[in-house]
């Protein structure tokens, strides 16, 4: 600020600064929310956290078994928050050939005396294997309603595509089971 500037001009500049900074504040508030889609996009791009397109349903896959290669697929189940649930895979691991479809079945049992809606959330380790795990059928695509004490057999049909990086010898597919009864009731309402 030089001596030549009068108070009126100073006032104008102050108001301008205030507006600029207020705008920056609002923009940064928006940026906080923009980080949500940005993060999801980044996760899909990099396979970070085992989350990407591979976690979604694949309508049809071309089977081209690569019999020369064998990969171990391990299955993990976790019940969130120590709920009264039984949740486990039929086999804890299996050897698969990339390019071939396999089916593994999971058992879930609601041990409560009330109806519950469950949702399994998958994760794949290592992260770089995530987009090569294709699923044509999975209970994790939908919320699963359980009556009191009901037990269900739930199949997963999956394939590792042949592009799976050569240094991956073991892929872990983990499911965490959440009680989403409240969430399901909310979304049952229109636009909920």
């Amino acid at each position: 600020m030089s001596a030549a500037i009068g108070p009126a001009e100073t006032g104008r500049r102050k108001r301008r600064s205030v507006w600029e900074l207020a705008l920056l504040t609002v923009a940064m508030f928006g940026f906080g929310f923009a980080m949500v889609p940005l993060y999801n996009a980044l996760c899909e791009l990099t396979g970070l956290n085992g989350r990407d397109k591979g976690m979604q349903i694949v309508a049809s896959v071309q089977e081209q078994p690569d019999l020369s290669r064998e990969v171990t697929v391990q299955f993990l189940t976790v019940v969130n928050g120590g709920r009264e649930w039984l949740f486990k895979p039929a086999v804890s691991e299996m050897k698969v050939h990339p390019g071939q479809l396999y089916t593994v079945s999971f058992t879930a049992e609601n041990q409560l005396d009330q109806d519950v809606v469950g949702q399994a959330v998958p994760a794949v380790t290592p992260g770089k294997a995530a987009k090569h795990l294709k699923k044509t059928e999975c209970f994790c695509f939908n919320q699963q309603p359980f009556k009191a004490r009901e037990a269900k057999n739930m199949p997963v049909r999956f394939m590792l595509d042949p592009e799976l990086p050569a240094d991956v010898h073991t892929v872990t597919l983990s499911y965490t089971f959440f009680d989403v009864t409240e969430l399901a009731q909310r979304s049952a309402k229109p636009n909920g």
Partner: protein
Amino acid sequence: MAHAHAHEGHDHDHHGPDKGIMRWIKTTNHKDLGTLYLCFAFIMFFIGGLMSLVIRAELFQPGLQFVDPEFFNSMTTMHALVMIFGGVMPAFTGLANWMVPMMIGAGDLALPRVNNWGFWILPFGFAMLLSTLFMPGGAPAGGWTMYPPLVLQTGNAFPMLIFAVHLLGISSITGAINVVVTILNMRAPGMTLLKMPLFVWTWLITAYLLIATMPVLAGAVTMLLTDKYFGTSFFTASGGGDPVLFQHIFWFFGHPEVYILILPAFGIVSTIIPTFARKPLFGYASMVYATASIGFLSFIVWAHHMFTVGMPLAAELFFMFSTMLIAVPTGVKVFNWVATMWRGSMTFETPMLFALGFVFLFTLGGFSGLMLAVTPVDFQYHDTYFVVAHFHYVLVPGAVFSIIAAIYYWIPKWTGRMYNEKLGKLHFWLSAIFINLTFFPQHFLGLAGMQRRVPDYNVMFTDFNVVSSIGAFAFFISQFIFIGNMLSCMFGKRDGKVPERVWEGAHGLEWTVASPAPYHTFEDPPLVGDNGEPVAAGQTAKAH
């Protein structure tokens, strides 16, 4: 506008502040508000300090003694929130209120009413936050970082926590906008940007960090609120969200936040050391550039708080190296402080002692920070007392020592009374000894594997915990010397006159006005010369 402004200034010359309590409630004077901010921060430091004593009492012995684990976790959570948002940040804002206008030759801050509003939000915000201590379900206990899904299990305290954070955020943003607008538009003629005192520079950059990051925190806690009450799934895995996302958003705010807590301290120390070394600050320009680079780097290192959440190797490496890079500008600063003292005519008054304590102990805290930056070893140190020792070293003998130093340094200017030097020195030595007694053993505890945020521990950790608890209680008690010394400065008998230039080696506009500083200073901006002081004493730009 021009005429009205001139009139206002004229009127103010004739009446001082209002009388009674309404003076403080309605005040728009930057000095009054600075005092309010500092007193408020002091009360919060006291409350937060009591909480830390509950923690240290419980940790005096292994096993559960005084409080149940849930309440213990409330104490760690609330201690952090109160100390960060109620203690350190308002104390720095108070110092900015008092000193920034006086240092750049402005009559007041640019937005005095906003300033009043920004301050008076704080007591309400903290009334909300502290009221949760008396609620069914207790105060928030999930840690000050508010990670979901844990924080979503908070009971009635949850919405109070969120809205309190919103209020504190609004308060700091208004304060920051005020500081930026003032510094950019109201500097006295001749006070060019690169002539500004470093305290003003560091606050300018701090204010930008605040404006850029507090809204992000507000967004993050808003998402927590809608996740809990309105069925959204930003961070709820069962609804397709990701709890790790919260950590990214939180630390995008949280890492610049730690520089918000330390940059003004750099400014204070860069002001005090030249005064008592009786030499100009070594490498002024490099100090400015170092501060700016720290401000920039603070935005690209956030995930070093999350090395153990399962990031890809490339990300771990990026955040490790970018974090280590911060040591370069910080090293420049420490080097400059030491070089300023080199062959200076040093004396060791209380502010200088605290500033030197800062340089030494903050650097120690910086070194443990470098250790934590190394990803592979961070897996070992994560969530242990080593982390607790690290951030307390940079925050207590770092930020808090600088605040104490600043108050000793400027209080003769504020009140026109000199503090008691003997008591000041006693206060410094007790503080310096006991703060090390408190936190130094925690390095060893952390390296040996003691976790943070747990009220019980393995019996093998007992000895160091006993030492640490004794240190904490003694440090707390030592601060009563400070309170006594400050109260006598504020209300004591005025014996002898304090000169305008309280310290013979002090330079800057604030030392050209009377002590105590009149209620209104620099109503007519001075003309600032090359040395950062008025061209001729009492000469204003208008007269020129």
